[in-house]
């Protein structure tokens, strides 16, 4: 088979079909034309809502160009002439030897009066979402018609846009397709707690305009009404079969292009894939079965014999922060089947298992509130139960133990990894979850199988300890609570009462940091001096040659010429290598310990203070020049950056904290690569959290939008304090959020909705920090006791360390190399090359171009 192939529709499945065909038809026997109605190529509709989390359209792109495939964007098909084998569009006719329909679905809008008013939207395309976002600006109340999967996604989107939201659902429960009545009731409690009001078992009878002609309210069948300045209709989808219908092709009982298990229609040259196809009469509204149809048709077109394998309708989602999963025969329609249910109003968990009549085989189930058992259960559908039903359902009972799964069970459905694959990786030496992720790709997509990876490690006898080190059996987070609640202020008491031994380079700095976060005074006072890493001990950064670097704070990167001159003079007088850092300030390298106080005396006198480059603490708040100068700026980004840096300076944390403020969406300050980033909008600030540069870069997530400065500050306060209390040692905010149960939604619940009742506490802790801040370096200079440690040799304080010597590179001092090995040889020590010598340092010997004057 070969010739001209026309594909109508470039959605998720249409694109997958073209990819699959190209993979099977390397010689291009089919010349392909794709007609697309939307103006942009295929994108990830499943992740559409991520658009409101700040993910831009490009990040959702699914399209890859192929040779021999013409994509005609914005050129919808208008008719199919089956006799002439021609598809027409407004501008052209396209002849075909084979035709594939991939037109998807359209959102069903119930025929109620007012459905066409301005302010009424559907939720299907990127254009829809962009229009919703635009229209939501400055509006306060919204409503969603439809309480299914899509409706709840839309409700969350409205919430993120700052609208108070009502959901109207005709069925007596939320998500009627996926969950049963008891699960729906549990889901409703969660949703209402987030401030989304639900109206169940009622229909919308009319959409009413306000005086300006735009939508203003919904009228309900129970006589009630709901105010709404913006309405999203998410009342279901219908297959787009209009072209097929007009061309006289048979349709399925509920619409859709009727095809058989080979996905071929009644016309042997016409095929249908994705949501518009009624395979043996049934349309599937999920992407996985759609992809299966794409593979079938691609295979058939190159002469294969594939047939549709049947659809797996299992779903697991997180909707408004609530885990919901449904799999197999979730509604228990198999004759004679048995239900086992579990409801716990306290932990708000609901679970149901559907078993065969002899209770031996798992048929399906529903989970709400805690879907941790989903991967195990789903992998067990059709087979024997891996444990007693109640053990499987009890939350955290560890009952759904992956250890009982057969080797063939799929552990990670996103990446098709079986238990056998995971076990093999463990046998091959993977000893923790990160290693398993790297080696098998399991757990790298939606992350829902990560708990199961832990269980499989356990089952293989690989211990997963949360102990901080050999001296403390607890994690950093638990240690923080112990110190806070017990009011312990010394390491010696803490290790005597809650640990063992003398401590080490892991637990001591952790405890020092916890004490500092709790505001226990100067980091060098009393016993605490002995806990600090050398950087905190000398309030400077240790360099490879034993010298230190000095970084004065330059808040927001803003600096007066006078201060710049002082830095220049200090650097010149102490002969320090000088470099502009990546954090918008200036680093002075090559200071010996005994020079540090002299250098800081000069800096402090000129109005500088510690930049905490040495601490696990706030580093810099970068800024762009913003509205003050920039022609695009819409807010005072420098002003805010300075204020934030001064507010959080000196705040000790599990790891360093970085921030930035950009004056507009062009984002010159790179705020989205920071632990917390702020980007100006026309009316305020957008707050992003959990960004990271460094080893594993991560874009920050949009946390809240259009905040006033007054509303912004408390959110950052709580974010930082909650991080400080609960993160692991050396865990940046990015990793902290990724590891958090419930992720960003949980974080939002804690610090916006105060779900744990912690906010007052967090606010008070930050107020204490801000109120008690004082410059560490000034405090040292004023105290002879503290100054005493800044000596080269205890018995020869006037002798500078002779091992620190410099060479000149590009006109500046840099550590001299090679001298250290000889120094050791002369003293007759064992000859050992320093490990660094084995490293191959690439000489940079290119001549420097001369600057013409």
């Amino acid at each position, binding site marked *: 088979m070969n010739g001209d192939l026309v594909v109508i529709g470039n959605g998720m499945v249409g694109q997958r079909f073209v990819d699959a065909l190209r993979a099977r038809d390397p010689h291009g026997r089919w010349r392909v034309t794709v007609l697309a109605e939307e103006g942009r190529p295929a994108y990830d509709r499943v992740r559409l809502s991520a658009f409101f989390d700040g993910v831009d359209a490009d990040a959702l792109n699914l399209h890859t160009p192929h040779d021999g495939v013409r994509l005609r964007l914005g050129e919808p098909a208008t008719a199919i002439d089956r006799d002439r084998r021609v598809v027409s569009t407004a501008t052209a006719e396209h002849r075909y030897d084979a035709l594939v329909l991939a037109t998807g679905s359209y959102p069903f809008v119930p025929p109620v009066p007012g459905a066409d008013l301005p302010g009424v939207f559907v939720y299907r395309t990127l254009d829809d979402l962009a229009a919703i976002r635009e229209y939501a600006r400055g509006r306060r109340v919204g409503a969603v018609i439809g309480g299914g999967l899509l409706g709840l996604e839309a409700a969350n989107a409205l919430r993120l846009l700052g609208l108070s939201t009502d959901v109207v659902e005709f069925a007596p429960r939320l998500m009627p397709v996926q969950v049963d009545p008891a699960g729906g009731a549990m889901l409703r409690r969660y949703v209402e707690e987030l401030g989304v009001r639900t109206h169940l078992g009622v229909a919308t009878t009319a959409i009413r305009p306000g005086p300006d002609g735009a939508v203003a309210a919904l009228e309900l069948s129970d006589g009630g009404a709901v105010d709404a300045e913006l309405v999203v209709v998410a009342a279901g989808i219908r297959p787009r079969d209009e072209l097929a219908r007009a061309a006289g092709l048979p349709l399925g009982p509920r619409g859709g292009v009727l095809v058989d298990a080979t996905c071929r229609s009644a016309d042997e040259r016409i095929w249908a894939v994705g949501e518009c196809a009624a395979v043996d009469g049934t349309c599937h509204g999920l992407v996985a079965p759609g992809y299966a149809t794409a593979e079938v048709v691609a295979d058939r077109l190159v002469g294969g014999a594939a047939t549709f394998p049947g659809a797996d309708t299992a779903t697991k989602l997180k909707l408004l922060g609530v885990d919901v999963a449904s799999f197999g025969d979730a509604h228990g329609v198999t004759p004679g089947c048995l239900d086992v249910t579990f409801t716990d109003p306290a932990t708000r968990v609901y679970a149901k298992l559907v078993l065969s009549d002899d209770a031996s085989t798992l048929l399906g189930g529903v989970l709400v509130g805690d879907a941790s058992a989903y991967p195990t259960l789903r992998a067990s559908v059709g087979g024997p139960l891996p444990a007693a039903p109640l053990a499987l359902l009890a939350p955290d009972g560890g009952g759904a133990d992956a250890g009982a799964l057969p080797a063939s069970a799929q552990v990670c459905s996103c990446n098709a990894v079986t238990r056998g694959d995971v076990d093999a990786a463990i046998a091959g030496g993977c000893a923790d979850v990160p290693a398993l992720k790297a080696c098998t790709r399991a757990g790298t997509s939606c992350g829902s199988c990560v708990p199961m990876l832990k269980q499989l490690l356990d089952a293989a006898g690989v211990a997963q300890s949360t102990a901080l080190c050999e001296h403390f059996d607890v994690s950093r987070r638990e240690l923080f609570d112990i110190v806070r609640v017990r009011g312990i202020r010394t390491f010696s008491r803490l290790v005597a009462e809650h640990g063992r031994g003398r401590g080490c*380079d892991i637990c001591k700095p952790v405890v020092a940091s916890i004490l500092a976060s709790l505001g226990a005074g100067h980091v060098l006072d009393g016993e605490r001096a002995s806990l600090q*890493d050398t950087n905190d001990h000398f309030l400077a950064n*240790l360099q*490879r040659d034993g010298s230190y670097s000095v970084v004065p704070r330059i808040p927001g990167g803003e600096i007066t010429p006078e201060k710049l001159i002082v830095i220049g003079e200090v650097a010149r007088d102490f002969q320090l290598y000088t470099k502009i850092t990546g954090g918008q300030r200036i680093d002075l390298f090559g200071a010996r310990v005994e020079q540090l106080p002299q250098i800081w005396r000069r800096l402090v006198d000129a109005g500088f203070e510690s930049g905490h480059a040495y601490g696990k603490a706030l580093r810099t708040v970068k800024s762009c020049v913003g509205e003050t100068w920039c022609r695009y700026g819409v807010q005072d980004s420098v002003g805010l950056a300075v204020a934030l840096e001064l507010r959080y300076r000196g705040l000790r944390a599990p790891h360093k904290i970085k921030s930035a403020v950009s004056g507009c969406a062009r984002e010159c300050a790179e705020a989205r690569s920071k632990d917390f980033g702020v980007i100006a909008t026309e009316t305020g600030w957008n707050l992003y959290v959990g960004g990271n540069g460094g080893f594993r870069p991560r874009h920050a997530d949009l946390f809240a939008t259009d905040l006033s400065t007054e509303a912004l500050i408390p959110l950052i306060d709580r974010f930082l304090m909650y991080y400080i209390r609960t993160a692991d040692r050396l865990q940046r905010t990015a990793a902290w959020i990724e590891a958090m149960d419930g992720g960003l939604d949980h974080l939002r619940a804690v610090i916006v909705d105060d779900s744990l009742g912690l906010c007052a506490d967090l606010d008070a802790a930050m107020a204490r920090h801000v109120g008690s801040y004082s410059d560490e370096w000034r405090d040292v200079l004023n105290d002879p006791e503290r100054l005493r440690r800044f000596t080269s040799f205890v*018995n020869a304080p006037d002798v500078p*360390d002779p*091992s620190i010597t410099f060479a000149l590179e590009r006109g500046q001092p840099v550590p001299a190399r090679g001298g250290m*090995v000889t120094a050791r040889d002369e003293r007759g020590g064992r000859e050992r090359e320093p490990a660094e010598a084995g490293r191959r340092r690439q000489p940079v010997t290119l001549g420097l171009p001369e600057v013409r004057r």
Partner: protein
Amino acid sequence: MNATLAWTPVCRLDRLEPDRGVAALVDGVQVALFRTADGLFAIDNQDPVSGAYVLSRGIVGSRGEVPTVASPLHKQVYDLRTGHCLDLPGVAVARHAVRCRDGLVEVRLRQED
């Protein structure tokens, strides 16, 4: 090389903070001195891995029953009693003799091996 057999007074004991080292210069050799609950220890100040003279600035602690110091550069841990590195087999740092007389800390360089 010539081992010094004499004891060199270095500083008063109270100049050594518990669990925090200092560097001393003894006959041109940089020595790291530590005062811990287990007593006084003296080792070479040079980190054998990096070559930098920094061991006196490491964090003091214990591993099992062993009193230790961790290099501040790359955190290899050394047994303060023997100088052996507990993380890298075969690596060790020279140790020296140290004692306290009449409130004065004294060091005697030791020729290793």
